[in-house]
């Protein structure tokens, strides 16, 4: 076992686990030498998490992880909270001996991560510190936060998020509802603007955080991969109220007992949010249907953001603004292109200097192409939602779990505040599923972009789906792909 050279980290992990189970009392330390040319960072994370799990089950030093020097040159933004939390556990327990290379590169991260975790735990819940001096709030959807973990887990404060709707289906409302509920659960003030006649009525459709009983029975695929199942069951027997599926979520819990203090909650769409959450002081609803121009909305936003000005003492509560269907046709301003653009520009300018996140949804099919591009450029984070038709046989062949899917979510742009390095996310296309008609689940559909020099193609499974602006183009693309596959 010692000094074995492993080609793939999965094999190495399996070997380590087997070794741990076979020799529970031996003090021998299995060393892992990994020198694969292109080791993706997620595999390193999984490997180190698995090794940690092995180590935690025993009380003797178990694993030494030697990272190839290439890893040291990766941007620290992608060596995110995950690796730094693993490393901080390692250092805390003082049982693992970590290789010199890892020790010397990690201190920079660990000195930051220790500071970060200290700061974030003392702050108000729901706000987390991230890289480049930005703070993050949860998007309300656990899967989205998880995929944005590299950024910092959620939406950065001071950014503008735009969601491109599909005119045929209201799936953007699911995202908006989660976003708003998350803010209300954390006690963050909310400003909601909508073109409907009764914006306040929408608050009655907001979901409530899921009860604990359901959390325990949810089967998470990611947790199985990390081999932490035993650790999970162990915690259950210890009688903790809050079993942690995800090892990364440990840092997100401030107090284990209280469900409400989670950074990101699971929301149950069948249960409406309790009324005491939306008191008048915290929620302000604005209707934009009947106003002549956007000046009234701009004033509301300006006064809201003035209450959340960012100053050096960052203990102020974060605020959330949700604007639904900004260019909806029933509004009078919908044909005033430049009006809307300058409203968004001034909103963006105001929100950059405040502790708030703005989410705007808009149907791009109602705007001209060049206006749509302008709106897209103004967004810091750009998401687009598309509906998929029911009972489409060709799609059912291509996508597994097609019956549960209600739509598709595509991440087109991610916020890059205070940094110029673009981020290539592992996953950009997700399927939106409503599990048991209650829980919003996002599943990754496309494969991660491959490294140019590794030479491997999309290979075994998965179809690379690329969402375009309208649903119909996308469906046509899928049909073309399916025809090629049939050939």
């Amino acid at each position, binding site marked *: 076992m010692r000094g074995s050279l492993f080609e793939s980290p999965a094999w190495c992990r399996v070997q380590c686990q087997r070794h741990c189970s076979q020799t529970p009392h031996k003090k021998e330390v299995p060393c892992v030498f990994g020198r694969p040319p292109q080791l993706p960072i997620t595999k390193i994370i999984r490997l180190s998490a698995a090794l940690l799990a092995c180590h935690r089950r025993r009380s003797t030093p178990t694993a030494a992880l030697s990272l190839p020097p290439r890893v*040291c*040159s*990766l*941007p*620290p*933004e992608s060596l995110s909270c995950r690796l730094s939390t693993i490393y901080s556990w390692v250092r805390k327990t003082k049982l693992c001996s970590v290789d010199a290379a890892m*020790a*010397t*590169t990690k*201190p*920079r991260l*660990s*000195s930051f991560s220790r500071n970060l975790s200290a700061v974030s735990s003392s702050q108000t819940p729901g706000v987390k510190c991230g890289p*480049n*001096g930005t703070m993050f709030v949860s998007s309300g959807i656990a899967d989205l936060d998880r995929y944005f973990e590299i950024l910092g887990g959620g939406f950065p404060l001071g950014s503008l998020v735009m969601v491109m709707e599909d005119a045929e289906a209201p799936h953007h409302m699911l995202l908006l509802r989660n976003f708003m509920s998350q803010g209300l659960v954390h006690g963050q003030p909310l400003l909601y603007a909508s073109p409907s006649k009764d914006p306040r009525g929408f608050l009655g459709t907001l979901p409530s955080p899921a009860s604990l009983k359901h959390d325990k029975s949810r089967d998470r695929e990611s947790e199985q991969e990390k081999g932490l199942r035993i650790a999970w069951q162990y915690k259950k027997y210890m009688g903790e109220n809050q079993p942690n599926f995800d090892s990364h979520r440990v840092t997100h819990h401030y107090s284990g007992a209280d469900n409400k203090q989670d950074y990101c909650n699971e929301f149950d769409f069948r249960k409406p949010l309790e009324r005491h959450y939306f008191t008048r002081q915290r929620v302000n609803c604005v209707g934009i249907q009947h106003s002549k121009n956007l000046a009234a909305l701009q004033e509301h936003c300006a006064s809201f953001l003035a209450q959340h000005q960012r100053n050096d003492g960052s203990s102020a509560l974060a605020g959330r603004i949700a604007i639904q269907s900004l260019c909806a046709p029933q509004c009078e301003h919908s044909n005033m*292109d*430049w009006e809307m*653009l*300058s409203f968004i*520009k*001034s909103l*963006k*300018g*105001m929100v*950059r*200097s405040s502790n708030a996140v703005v989410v705007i949804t808009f149907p791009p099919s109602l705007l*001209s*192409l*060049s206006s749509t*591009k*302008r709106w*897209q*450029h*103004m967004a810091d984070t*750009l998401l687009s939602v598309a509906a998929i038709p029911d009972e489409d046989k060709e799609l059912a062949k291509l996508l597994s779990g097609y019956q549960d899917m209600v739509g598709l979510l595509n991440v*087109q*742009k991610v916020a*890059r*505040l*205070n*940094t*110029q*390095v*673009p981020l*290539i996310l592992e996953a*950009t296309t997700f399927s939106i599923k409503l599990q048991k008609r209650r829980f919003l689940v996002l599943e990754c559909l496309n494969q*991660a*972009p*491959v*490294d*140019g*020099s590794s030479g491997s193609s999309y290979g075994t499974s998965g179809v*690379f789906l*690329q969402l375009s602006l309208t649903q119909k183009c996308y469906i046509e693309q899928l049909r073309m792909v399916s025809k090629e596959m049939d050939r």
Partner: protein
Amino acid sequence: MENQNLNLLDRALGLDGPSEPWPLSGRVVLIEDCVETSGSFVLHQLVKRSLSPTSSNVIIFVAFANPFSHYDRILRKLGCNLVTQRDNKRFIFFDMLMLRCPDVDEGKSSEGGLVLLYEKILKTICGLPGDKKDYVTIMIDDISLVEVAANGGSDYVLDFLHYCHALTSEFDCSLITLNHEDIYSSMERPTLILQMEYLADILIKAEPLSTGLATDVHGQLTVLNKGTSHRLGRSGNKIHNFHYKLYVVLWRKKLVISIDKGYSSEKRSFRRTYHVNGRLGFWNLNTLCVTHLLNG
């Protein structure tokens, strides 16, 4: 130390020669990008080169897109302290995030705001001491937002740009602008972008790869350097095409850990040291590297 950090982008722009006279003076640079690939990194690189200690450039930065803190953080990682440069009057920042020209019905036309902006720039240039007047760089972040600020009056924006262009011949300053090309690609008569492309001496385009996303390449950069006629003879058009990747470089140099708090590119002095595990290590922060994969 300066020579180590030169890369292909600098060579394509002609910045690899001596810093004085500034090779971009009197020239207009247009940076084009799209939603998938942002071209602002070229702007940051040009700011860094202009503010290098060997040159005596003054930058007038007209920002419509991001506040000062954003550029400050980025350039600090590149090794350039904007706060010190601002105090030394080498970096003048105009924050135009909240500029909104008055509406047309109010009587005053949208060009009022842009005329005021131009006068401000002119006043700043004239107010500079004599030796610094020759090396001024005007950078405008995001012409598309200038259009939004002018309520869609692209004629006014064009006038403003023409006036700024006149400054390049009058004061020998250089004009660097950023615009988004995909906004205009669907228009019938994209006057603004066509005129800007015509005026520009150097055209830099950042595009995504045609094959889709990749982990090791962020996009491709095309630099078109139209020859100048007032140097020694006329050099022909040069087109350079690169794949580029932006990343953070960490390397171990000495046994000191530094946090990026106020160190200037000249001295590289370190303010704080940390002891971790009884060992000390040093990390430098981001630099921009452009990898040459294609030759044009």
